[in-house]
């Protein structure tokens, strides 16, 4: 999935933005997964009546 960088100036962003898939996986890891964790964290707190 991660291929050698082909951009002129190689950086982490050019590697992540090779195609839509790598960028999607990156942003989901960074944003969506923490939100899933927030969801269950809030659920636990609400059930405990906090």
């Amino acid at each position, binding site marked *: 999935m991660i291929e050698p960088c*082909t951009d002129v100036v190689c950086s982490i962003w050019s590697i992540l933005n090779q195609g839509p898939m790598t960028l999607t996986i990156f942003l989901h890891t*960074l944003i969506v997964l923490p939100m899933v964790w927030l969801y269950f964290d809030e659920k636990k707190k609400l059930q405990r009546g906090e």
Partner: protein
Amino acid sequence: MENKPTSVWTSNRFWSRSAGWVTGVAAVLLILLTFDTMAQITMGTAEDVENKVTKRVPSPIVINYKITYEMDQRRGHEVPIIGGNDGNGKSLFQEKEKFFGRDDWTEEEAMELVNLGKLTVQAKNCMDCHTLLGNGAYYAPDLTKAWLDPAWGPEGPMQAMTGASSKEEAMATFLQNPDKYPTHERMMPNLGITAEEAKGVVAFLKHMSTIDTNGFPRNFGKIKGAVYVE
């Protein structure tokens, strides 16, 4: 208490925490991207050209070289090649090309010329009609890769029309009296560009065509003859 039915979706706290998280991550990403962009748009130097190092924005000294636009199969779009292709889609910085009769413009001279061109482009407000690197209007043709437009080349109609013997002279002649050379239904007005300013604008356009814009403007390569084929 553990199994008390609860709906997190209606909880204000969940949404405010989520909004805080997303805003925070997006802000950090934007800051990191800004630093990354600063590094990428920093202009290269004459030493880079001597050492055959390709920069996204090369030194203005590249006006001494032949510029082509070639398909890069790995990147999936055309890229500017300075001074010939090494066979792997990288610039060789070897093949020179006379620019207004010279191919030994120093970095300072080239920078001065490109700067004069940039200031002229700003003073005459070219972006009112044209697009430069994604900024401006689409009333008139996109100028980002104008230097590579085959219309100005030896096979194109512009050299014969302006009576010039080279690409840069054809462009400079046209710029000084665009109203004399109808090229389009929407004719370019005479903006009172002087001979020296026209030279600068052409240098600016040539330098801009060497900037690696990740294939922007899209479909430029579809102009017949725009992409160099060995």
